[in-house]
């Protein structure tokens, strides 16, 4: 885990740790009643000993499964949560101790919830942000117009948020996060639940702002495509630990560019036929189990169509599916690499 940067870091995390106390109660009403008198507090470690430094203008993908600790880290960086131990410094200040100061230079969008007022037109929420961040009127108008060019939000501005679709809402939320030209943008799952077209618009927008303004972008996601299209650096967190921090190419070269082919079989395959397929160049068995054969294929070495055809010829295939690997398999292969 190393990265050499010429610039002094904008964001610095050192041995960042966050633990929660969770009250466990036994299931059912009786358990809940018992919990009233004797509840055993349990400590859950969400993030443990995470250190990194991020320079100005970087686009960092923060990757991990659900519950890996992404959101907790983001909330400590934004100053929402106070670290249990370790420290965060953003542009020389400690966010959770200087929330108002830190708030001026950051923009935040969460895919899971909106910062806009549910009941009133989007434009009114924008106007409120203009007052809160004291955005000069001309800069404000310029931003709204520019964001409209990339996101096409103009027709949505007169509508209350509760009447927007998820994709429309997310576009408005993103625009809201960038209205005051923040130095740093923290985006937590900004494409979650969106269709392909909306995802593309969101990604194009983030890229645009990064290029035009030099905004530092921290993007937490479990969608590898987000990272691929936006980021130049990736940090992978798993079970609260940082397991990878480095350039993006490495992950994709080594782990993510392969395709997965899955054969569901009507009858168990003969070992020879499985061997024949797995001996094709660039083909690796991920799982061979009774009625399932799951393969990783490096498209540079074998065309996926050839591998699929071989499978259909040699195996008693009931169902065939092709997919890009998810974050799980990337994390898994990083682990395997570390162990070997």
């Amino acid at each position, binding site marked *: 885990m190393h990265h050499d940067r010429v610039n002094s870091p904008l964001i610095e995390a050192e041995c960042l740790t966050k633990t929660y106390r969770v009250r466990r109660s036994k299931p059912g009403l009786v358990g809940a009643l018992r919990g009233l008198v004797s509840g055993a507090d349990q400590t859950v470690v969400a993030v443990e000993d995470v250190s990194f430094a991020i320079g100005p203008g970087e686009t960092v993908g923060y990757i991990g499964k659900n519950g890996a600790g992404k959101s907790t880290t983001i909330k400590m960086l*934004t100053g929402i949560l106070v670290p249990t131990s370790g420290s965060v410094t953003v542009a020389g200040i400690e966010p959770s101790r200087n929330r108002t100061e830190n708030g001026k230079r950051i923009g935040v969008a969460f895919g899971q919830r909106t910062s806009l007022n549910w009941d009133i037109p989007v434009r*009114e929420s924008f106007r409120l942000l203009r007052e809160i961040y004291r955005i000069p009127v001309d800069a404000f108008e310029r931003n709204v117009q520019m964001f409209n060019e990339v996101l096409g939000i103009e027709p949505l501005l007169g509508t209350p948020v509760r009447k927007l679709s998820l994709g429309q809402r997310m576009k408005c939320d993103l625009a809201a996060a960038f209205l005051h030209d923040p130095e740093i943008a923290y985006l937590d799952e900004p494409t979650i639940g969106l269709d392909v077209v909306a995802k593309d618009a969101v990604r194009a927008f983030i890229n645009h702002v990064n290029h035009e303004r030099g905004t530092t972008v921290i993007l937490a996601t479990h969608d590898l495509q987000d990272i691929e299209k936006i980021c130049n650096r990736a940090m992978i967190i798993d079970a609260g630990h940082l397991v990878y921090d480095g350039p993006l190419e490495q992950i994709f070269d080594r782990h993510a560019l392969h395709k997965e082919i899955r054969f569901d079989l009507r009858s168990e395959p003969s070992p020879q036929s499985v061997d024949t397929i797995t001996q094709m160049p660039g083909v690796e068995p991920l799982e061979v189990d009774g009625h399932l054969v799951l393969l990783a294929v490096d498209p540079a070495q074998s065309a996926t169509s050839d591998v699929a055809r071989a499978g259909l010829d040699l195996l008693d295939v009931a169902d065939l599916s092709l997919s890009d690997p998810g974050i799980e398999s990337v994390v898994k292969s990083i682990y395997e690499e570390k162990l070997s």
Partner: protein
Amino acid sequence: MAIRAYAALGVQRAQVALTYRLSLATGILTGLVRILVLYYIWRVVYQGESVLQGFTLQEMTTYLFVSFVLRNFYSFQTETSISSKIRDGSVSFELIKPLNYQMARFAESLGSVVVEGVLIGIVVATVGWIAFGMSGPATPVAAAAFVASLVLSLMINFAICFLVGLVSFWSTSVFGIVNSKRLIVEFFSGALVPLAFFPAWLRTIAQWLPFRGIVSTPVIIYLGQVSGERMWAELAVQAAWIVVMWLAGAAVWRLATRRLEVNGG
């Protein structure tokens, strides 16, 4: 100026309040029903009596309407709006704004209170004036002091709601606390029965609690039951409570955000 940001927050909240016209209308309707019920109870109480505990029936009627207008300002949801955001985690967005949290919530509370309170208040006071012979403020000075006391009452009310709302950081069942707080305020503020009708020991307790500053103090100023030096003293007591509870709110907020755990991912 930072004040513009807070003003904008208040204006936006007022705007939201105006979108809920049905809730405004039902607020007016239930308010009138409540007053009618209380009015007829008091009429029975006053049968054969002209003055009770220093109140004539007309003064009591006036007390009913003015206290309703004041009570109305606190029947709306400052604490629930604070606590629901803590519960569902959207308090996150308030924590990253470059604003003082307490000031921002106060601005919002004022925004909704001014719309709801003033609109409902005007309707109810007009009804009281035309149909029930409610009197105006005792003197011009009493009128001015009443307005000052009303503003202080809003601030006391907010300071209490703020403290109660913050309980959500420690407990997920704020509903019960909010409800008991409402009952306590209803009773000790004088919204239900004027404090003059309390037995002496209970009146002493009420004297030393902040709640009477919400309803009782402004109404007795309106009625002219206190004037001169005593009136100023009453206003000073209100102001003192605001300072104490505002500081308490700020301290609890600091404590709460030190141990904050945001719900919902």
